[in-house]
């Protein structure tokens, strides 16, 4: 694949910033362009989530982009984080556009909201209404209304099938908080111990407060261009080695999820099949990966991703985390070295993209020594995807 990440940008991450999503998106995109040494007018492609509130036309108007040749959106919130980068890289590789920005902007603090659209902020269950016409009719009447409830049910199945313990999820939360404690951009920087995790509020058993992603505002963006052009720009080019996208059942439709998921059964599909394509296309194996960003609305998603993408065996993610393999600096595969969605910020996982790029550039605060290959995946509980990034040397 002939595409590379040339620029990364992000806003401050904080609660209740009082800024619109367009405002946040423009800052992150301008910051990514500045990082790359590109004029904003060079952007000719835009990739975003289907839930994104910032419209392509608004970006053209606000940023002064004269012409867009390529626009694409990817399904699912946190599932699509890596796919944003994947779609941008495909467009560049295929010649559909030369300079594509992939971004996400959120104003979604607990009380902040700029409208009634279910994707526009506030709590989803407060916007579901009293009359349920969509998939909510199979969840809400039974009190299952928050993503935490759905992920807790998924986690309980993993525990039953594989003997995973609740505190295995907590151990990943502790690891990510340690990473965030050294990251000045992270919202939650006070280190926690597993005892703190045990003492934290249960949200939906087995998940506790520290297993949950944050609620905050912010935006992040990456700029993808050809490898050749990226080499002439400001930063060292970070190569996109391969990308995959896949359809898979989603946590908001649990009846279908449990009927078809590859998470617990010895079943192909979803990330299990996609992983073979991802590593096959790049000509490497999971053991060649130096650092991983795994989008996690809840910590259990990291454990599911470790297994489904083949970083450990089926059912082996609990012991993998317990033995410190996901903890920087000594783990075999440091995961979410910026603190992830539970400690740096929740930007639907798009804050994981700049961190993977920093790791390959060698500029991360928790830098994995000589990182050559970085892995990024969206939340495996959704239609999702993954990307491998590599150093240009």
């Amino acid at each position, binding site marked *: 694949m002939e595409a590379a990440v040339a620029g990364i940008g992000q806003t401050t991450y904080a609660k209740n910033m009082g800024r619109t999503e367009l405002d946040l998106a423009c800052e992150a995109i301008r910051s990514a362009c500045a990082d790359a040494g590109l004029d904003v007018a060079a952007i000719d492609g835009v990739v975003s989530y289907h839930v994104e509130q910032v419209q392509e036309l608004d970006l053209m108007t606000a940023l002064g982009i004269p012409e867009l040749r390529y626009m694409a959106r990817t399904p699912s919130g946190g599932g699509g984080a890596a796919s944003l980068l994947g779609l941008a890289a495909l467009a560049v590789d295929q010649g559909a556009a030369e300079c594509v920005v992939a971004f996400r902007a959120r104003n979604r603090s607990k009380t902040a909201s700029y409208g009634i659209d279910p994707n526009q902020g506030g709590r989803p269950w407060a916007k579901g209404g009293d009359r349920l016409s969509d998939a909510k009719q199979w969840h809400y*009447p039974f*009190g299952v209304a928050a993503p935490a409830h759905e992920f807790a049910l998924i986690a309980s199945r993993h525990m039953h099938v594989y003997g995973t313990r609740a505190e295995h999820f907590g151990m990943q939360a502790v690891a990510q908080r340690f990473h965030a404690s050294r990251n000045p951009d992270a919202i939650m920087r006070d280190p926690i111990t597993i005892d703190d995790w045990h003492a934290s509020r249960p949200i939906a*058993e087995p998940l506790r407060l520290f297993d949950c992603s944050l609620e905050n505002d912010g935006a992040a963006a990456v700029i993808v261009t050809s490898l050749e052009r990226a080499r002439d720009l400001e930063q060292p080019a970070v190569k996109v080695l391969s990308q995959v996208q896949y359809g898979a059942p989603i946590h908001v439709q649990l009846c279908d999820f449990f009927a078809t998921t590859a998470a617990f059964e010895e079943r192909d599909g979803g990330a299990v099949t996609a992983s073979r394509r991802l590593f096959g296309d790049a000509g490497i194996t999971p053991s060649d990966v130096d650092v991983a960003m795994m989008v996690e609305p809840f910590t259990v998603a990291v454990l599911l991703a470790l297994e489904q993408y083949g970083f450990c065996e089926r059912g082996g993610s609990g012991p993998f985390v317990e033995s410190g393999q996901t903890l920087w600096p000594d783990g075999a595969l440091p995961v979410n070295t910026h603190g992830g969605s539970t400690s740096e910020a929740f930007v639907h996982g798009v804050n994981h993209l700049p961190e993977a790029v920093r790791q390959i550039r060698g500029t991360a605060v928790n830098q994995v020594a000589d990182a050559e290959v970085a892995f990024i995946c969206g939340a495996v509980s959704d239609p999702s995807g993954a990307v491998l990034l590599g150093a240009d040397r």
Partner: protein
Amino acid sequence: MSAPYPRPAPIGAHDARFWSFAAQGELRIQRCADCGVHRHPPRPLCAACGSTAVEWVAASGRGEIWARTVIHPPTLPAFTERTPYCAVVVRLDEGVFMVSTIVDRNPDDVVVAAPVELVLTEVERDLVLPLARVVDA
């Protein structure tokens, strides 16, 4: 008094049939009239063979707890006064899955793999839901 339940108000005919059967005290699910595969939630056609011919057959209501959680902070107003409560995913003997709530046990006593029965229950006026009861061996 608790806030009212959020109510199913399906716009699709297939979803509506499930709830209208439930309102009459019948737990029925879709079965492909050509290949016999059960499906739920309702769908317009069979994913196994593509047939749109469908029968609404009585479900056994029997199954096992496939997944289980105990929910602590209230989210939906209707459930505020009963937190913590136990929500489950049930795998029915027919092979389909349903989300439900356990009403007859202390949440701490509810475990994955326990046999359960779905019982249609009028939780408030004109709202009948399949709630789960643990079946003692």
